[in-house]
């Protein structure tokens, strides 16, 4: 019985002209998303290699390692990041490191090529998010009430068909009817990866497969929701309207509203305001510093006048006291400022995290947002990418500093000017250019599979939960459904 209903559902959906047209468009979009992703990856690799070569070329004429302190590192393109772009184009892909201060990340790709910010690439996540949800709604909005309108429900239940079997068969059949054909272009797209010379690690393949499974779960949410709505409403036109409203809320409104709500609930101080507070603190400190210096100087002068000893030795001792006092005062105020600014930055960071967490938690009400979070986490293009790149660059900066120390014997920041001023030295023979091949190479380390999975699993679990909830709701609603 169940098998019969599943096969009927498969045949009914796949045999319709609506399916043929929609499937054709979806297939083209999915294959196009893979194709453009692969092309973008190749372009990205070319740009990445060119940037690295240009970076090394500027050191080819350099004869002293001291010049290598200011270096640029580049975020290498990754195949999965080209399929699911996430924030990868919105953050800078180049960081300047000098072995000393903190790395500085340059502006984003879109700041250089702003046209792409207006007309963004069609990536796989976008195609799945929009197409899969609409596809599910389009084929399941009238799953039950449509059968009632057509009179086939009465005819079916004039037979000894248990309601539970019927609804389970309907849900399973609809899911298979949508998933199996959609997997065809997805598999073609996956086959295109090696065919178009994209080499992927086992971990990347695993992440891609989990991403596709998640997209099917996402489709399942809208499918079960559509069947549920078709059980709740009498007319198929009503269920379609309700589902369209839910779709707009889920895909367009909730994700944006979550950011707005979080932005209003948790205020994050701007960098300018921190700079302003820092300046104020420094001004205040400067006044205090002058006041304390004057007080100390006057006290010292009084002490000296009281002693009446004006020997050179005494003067030197007083000068040393003043120097020591100034040095101590400077260190004290520097520490104060550093602690104050550090606290401000930490506070800002904590607020950013709280804001981000609140925005993500609110957005999790929407299956579309959940899917975005899952896919960007799995493909390494989530909001954490910038931090990971920054940490990688900072770690590289340290190894660069060690390398320079090995080569010059000095730590960066204490390099003597003589190292940079070759003319001031007596040249016995022309200096030889440095071997650029020795410069440590920056390699972006994408997170491990287990790390990515741990981060994505809660959201995948919520997608599963959504499926279960709507499945149970459809089931229960159909058990009470008026078949007349």
């Amino acid at each position, binding site marked *: *019985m169940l098998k*019969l*209903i599943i096969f*009927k559902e498969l*045949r*009914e959906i796949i*045999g*319709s002209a609506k399916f043929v047209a929609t499937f054709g468009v979806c297939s083209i979009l999915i294959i196009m998303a893979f194709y453009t992703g692969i092309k973008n990856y190749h372009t990205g690799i070319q740009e990445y290699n060119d940037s690295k070569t240009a970076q090394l070329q500027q050191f080819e004429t350099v004869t002293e390692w001291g010049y290598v302190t200011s270096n640029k590192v580049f975020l290498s393109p990754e195949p999965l990041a080209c399929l699911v772009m996430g924030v990868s184009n919105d953050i800078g892909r180049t960081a300047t490191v000098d072995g000393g201060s903190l790395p500085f990340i340059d502006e984003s790709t879109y700041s250089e090529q702003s046209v792409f910010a207006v007309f963004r690439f069609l990536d796989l996540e976008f195609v799945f998010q929009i197409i899969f949800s609409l596809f599910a709604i389009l084929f399941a909005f009238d799953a039950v009430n449509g059968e009632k309108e*057509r*009179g*086939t429900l*009465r*005819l*079916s*239940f*004039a*037979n*000894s*068909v*248990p309601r539970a079997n019927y609804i389970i068969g309907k849900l399973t059949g609809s899911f298979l009817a949508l998933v199996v054909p959609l997997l065809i272009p997805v598999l073609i797209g996956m086959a295109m990866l090696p065919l178009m010379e994209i080499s992927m690690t086992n971990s990347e393949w695993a992440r891609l497969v989990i991403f596709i499974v998640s997209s099917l779960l996402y489709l399942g949410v809208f499918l079960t929701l559509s069947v549920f709505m078709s059980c709740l409403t009498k007319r198929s036109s009503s269920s379609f309207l309700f589902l369209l409203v839910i779709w707009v809320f889920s895909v367009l409104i909730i994700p944006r509203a979550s950011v707005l709500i979080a932005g209003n609930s948790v205020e994050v101080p701007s960098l300018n305001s921190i700079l302003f507070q820092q300046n104020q603190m420094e001004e205040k400190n400067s006044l205090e510093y002058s006041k304390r210096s004057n007080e100390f100087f006057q006290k010292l002068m009084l002490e000296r006048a009281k002693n009446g000893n004006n020997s050179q030795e005494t003067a030197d001792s007083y000068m040393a006291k003043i120097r020591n006092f100034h040095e101590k005062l400077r260190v004290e105020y520097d520490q104060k400022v550093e602690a104050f600014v550090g606290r401000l930055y930490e506070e800002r960071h904590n607020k950013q995290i709280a804001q981000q967490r609140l925005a993500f938690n609110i957005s999790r009400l929407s299956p579309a947002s959940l899917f975005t979070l899952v896919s960007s986490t799995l493909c390494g293009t989530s909001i954490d990418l910038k931090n990971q790149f920054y940490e990688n660059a900072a770690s590289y900066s340290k190894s660069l500093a060690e390398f320079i120390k090995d080569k010059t014997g000095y730590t960066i920041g204490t390099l003597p000017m003589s190292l940079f001023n070759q003319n001031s030295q007596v040249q016995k023979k022309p200096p030889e250019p440095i071997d650029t091949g020795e410069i440590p190479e920056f390699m972006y380390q994408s997170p491990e599979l287990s790390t990515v999975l741990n981060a994505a699993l809660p959201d995948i679990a919520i997608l599963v939960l959504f499926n279960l909830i709507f499945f149970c709701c459809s089931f229960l609603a159909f058990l009470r459904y*008026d*078949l*007349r």
Partner: protein
Amino acid sequence: MTESINSLSENQVVLEADKLTKRYEDGVLALDALSFTIKSSEIYAMLGANGAGKTTTINLFLNFIEPTSGEARVMGIVTHKEPLLAKEKLAFVSENVMLYQNFTAIQNLDYFAKLGGKKNYTRDDYRDVLLRVGLQEEAHNKRLKGFSKGMRQKCGIAIAILKDAPAILLDEPTSGLDPKAGYEFIQLLDNLRSEGKSILMSTHDIFRAREISDTVGIMNQGKLVMQAGRDELTDKDLEQLYMKYMAGHMEAAA
């Protein structure tokens, strides 16, 4: 398993309404202590205006709704107590047979036959039954999208025949059919009766009811206001009786 028609003894009661009453949640009394019996090889026509309770009676036999009191029985099985078992012994043809528009006539027959528990039919069986109900062979493998109401109705009755159930429920089966299709349909019902089927038919068509039915019941506002055997009625009597009860209904409504 469906009990074979051949095992039914003559004059065995197949369909039975026993003080069947249905009051909807909004308080409307749709059916008021309706009682009748239909034996094997018998056709019972329920006549009545819209809202008289004809479709409610059929819905109670199919357990689409539960009675407020009383029982609907199919071969002694109370439909709301053992609905799945009762439905094994019932076939149903609705007023406007739609079926699955993307399926061909044979695909529809195959699906509904299997849903009715008949898994061993071949394509030839489907072809034979479609020819029997008068659907031309060139239409057998065409999708139902282009079918007229009469053609769809034929498919509906073919599905009912394939189920080979002892009882058939027909909800206004001739409404919208042209005279030729209507005549063919009546012939078909006559054949089914001769095979031992019990048929409960709701209809507005007084003359066809008179022509084919063994018993005619006139319903008004949920009550069976008159019941008579074919031999007791002439065409004229039935028309007059029907008009009388309808007029009564109109007056009551006014």
